């Protein structure tokens, strides 16, 4: 949810101030992207509009950008260019890190409905259990999701699958793989400089299809319409997808017959396995070499949480570990039908518009999701 559409001047002021305070107090902790001078930078303001095709020469210039502009979001390309500040055609592409985006919203989890609300596009009323706004009957709305622990854990599982494939199948050294919490609903996985950096978009898409276990053929595993080729059957000791498929579908369950029905059955099983065995990555991100991607250490304007490196994924709790906005109290008017936990405290639900005084990080969180507004003190 992009709450900026419903923001008034006071909201913008409060958010800009809160973000700026974060950047000022954490400036030295924000990691500097490698080869910073070769990357394209961009940022968004709370008032709207995207500024991109910028180059940032060094750490100092990056800090200046963060403090001077009070950005809502900061982006940095995964590509390296000779002239990052030129038009796309003139930039002179030099390669791009592999990047992967795993988002809980793409996992279609059952819990999602329970923590999603709607912000009316007309009257800004916030509602949950209705197809149209109970206040003005408008069907125009923006969905606002408040990912729960289940969402984060499911996204973590996808990260584990992805990292396993990157290391064992694609031979990428663990030291080059960095896992970041995206600052909202999922994780970003960055792979530093490897042999894969020169891959063109179509090849990146093919790599993504491999990771997703998408478009697999039964023939790969010795199952044809006309015959079964037992020599091609995978074994559990095989590396890559062969070994994974053997563990799941072969062994005792190995197909024996050669009928078309058997073939179709196996093809269906393999097709469905992309959802259970493959890692659910956003292909738009992986295949795009001209994207500017959320910069590590920056705040996400959809939540106010930071995109932060996860050194211990299993223990990582975004609502504790990525919450860096100050905890002084601010007054807001909240209409937030979802109860949520942040920074060790629980907030809401605020079914009707309620004036409350909450910690700044919680106020920012609700405002970023379009369910609260600033009140002048």
């Amino acid at each position: 949810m992009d709450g900026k559409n419903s923001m008034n001047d006071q909201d913008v002021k409060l958010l800009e101030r809160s973000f700026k305070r974060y950047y000022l107090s954490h400036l030295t902790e924000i990691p500097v992207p490698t080869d910073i001078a070769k990357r394209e930078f961009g940022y968004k303001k709370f008032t709207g509009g995207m500024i991109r095709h910028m180059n940032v020469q060094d750490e100092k210039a990056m800090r200046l950008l963060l403090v001077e502009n009070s950005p809502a979001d900061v982006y940095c390309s995964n590509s390296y260019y000779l002239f990052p500040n030129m038009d796309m055609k003139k930039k002179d592409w030099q390669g791009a890190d592999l990047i992967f985006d795993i988002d809980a919203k793409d996992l279609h989890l059952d819990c999602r409905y329970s923590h999603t609300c709607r912000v009316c596009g007309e009257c800004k009323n916030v509602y949950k259990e209705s197809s149209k706004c109970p206040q003005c009957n408008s069907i125009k709305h923006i969905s606002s999701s408040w990912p729960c622990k289940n969402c984060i854990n499911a996204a973590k599982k996808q990260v584990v699958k992805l990292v396993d494939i990157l290391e064992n199948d694609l031979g990428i050294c663990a030291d080059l793989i960095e896992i970041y919490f995206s600052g909202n609903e999922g994780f970003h996985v960055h792979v530093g400089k490897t042999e894969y950096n020169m891959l063109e978009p179509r090849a990146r898409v093919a790599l993504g299809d491999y990771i997703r276990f998408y478009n697999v053929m039964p023939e790969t595993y010795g199952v044809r319409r006309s015959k079964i080729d037992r020599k091609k059957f995978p074994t559990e000791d095989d590396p890559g997808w062969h070994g994974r498929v053997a563990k799941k579908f072969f062994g005792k369950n190995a197909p024996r017959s050669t009928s078309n029905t058997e073939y179709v059955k196996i093809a269906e099983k393999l097709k469905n396995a992309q959802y259970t065995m493959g890692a659910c990555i956003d292909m738009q991100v992986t295949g795009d070499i001209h994207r500017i991607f959320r910069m590590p250490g920056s705040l996400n304007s959809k939540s106010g949480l930071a995109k932060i490196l996860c050194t211990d994924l299993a223990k990582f709790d975004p609502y504790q570990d990525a919450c860096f906005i100050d905890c002084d109290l601010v007054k807001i008017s909240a209409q937030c039908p979802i109860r949520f936990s942040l920074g060790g405290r629980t907030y809401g639900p605020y079914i009707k518009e309620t004036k409350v005084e909450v910690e700044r990080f919680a106020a920012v969180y609700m405002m970023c999701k379009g369910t609260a507004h600033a009140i002048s003190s």
Partner: protein
Amino acid sequence: MLKLGPVEIAKYPFVEDASSYIRDIGITLEKLGTDPDLQIFIDMAMKRIRTAADGGVYESLPDMLDKRRMMFETLSFLVAVILLKLCGMQTLIRRFALAEARRAEKNLGVDLRIHPADKFELAKRLIGDLFSVNIEYINGDLSVPVQDYLTRAINFHEREWNLVNRRVSKGRVYLTRHETVRLLRTEISSYIQAKIRSAKMPTMQSGFEKPVTELIDLAKRFASETVIVSGEHPPCIKHAIEILERGENLPHSGRFMLATFLLNRGQSVEQIAPLFKNAPDYNERTTMYQLRNLSGESGGGTKYTCPSCEKIKSNDMCFANEKCDGIFTPLHFGRKK
């Protein structure tokens, strides 16, 4: 620069520089063009070009250990390059390069066997030097780095070439010898074409005039065989034609789509058949038989129609653009609404 022995030069003559090789063995271009004893090289070169033009692959002379024959083999290639350069017909150069790439593919397929090790090492070095692909045997299986595989395999349209349908481990893709060289065919062909294009223009000799004129006539024959179709083709059809022009394998579904499309647009079997000449498994009789069947001239008499866009999509042969909006079959492409 990779240094090869005479046997390898005969197998992979495109690695050599034509003029310096001929000079090194003591033959001048002038002599080649005038000495009746050397006429045999021109005849062999012409045979090599004609075979390529007809979609065939030049068969190596038997008994390759014979030094004289190896020289014949190499010279016939190099003289062919000189003649092609002099005639300047791009159609012939393309066909020749593709046929020679297929010949090299066959030889590489043999040399990439794990034994004898020296042959494998040479084939590996050749591929490494010319195309920057690092081939290795790992636990008795041939493998290439994933990134090298991907950059080439994305141009193939059969699902079996999708990385997900390959054995992959620790950054390497495992392939058979045949698959490994197939992966490189387009590059070998491009390499040969580039080599011919960048070669210094030889001086015309009196003995070259007749064969060069003959080659120009041969090329004209191909020009007249070109299928001329009025109106713009839809992108799926354009793409299928491009694949065939590159000498790559167009899957059965693609061939069916292309043939039925053109037949339904009013082309005759004879007009369409030459399109398939570049297909790696081209067989004139089979092609004509199949086209006649599709056109309804033979078989059950049913004239097949072009598959729907949906069917083409499911076969991964759809490359729709904005002009395809609202059409259900490629045959409706370009119709005014």
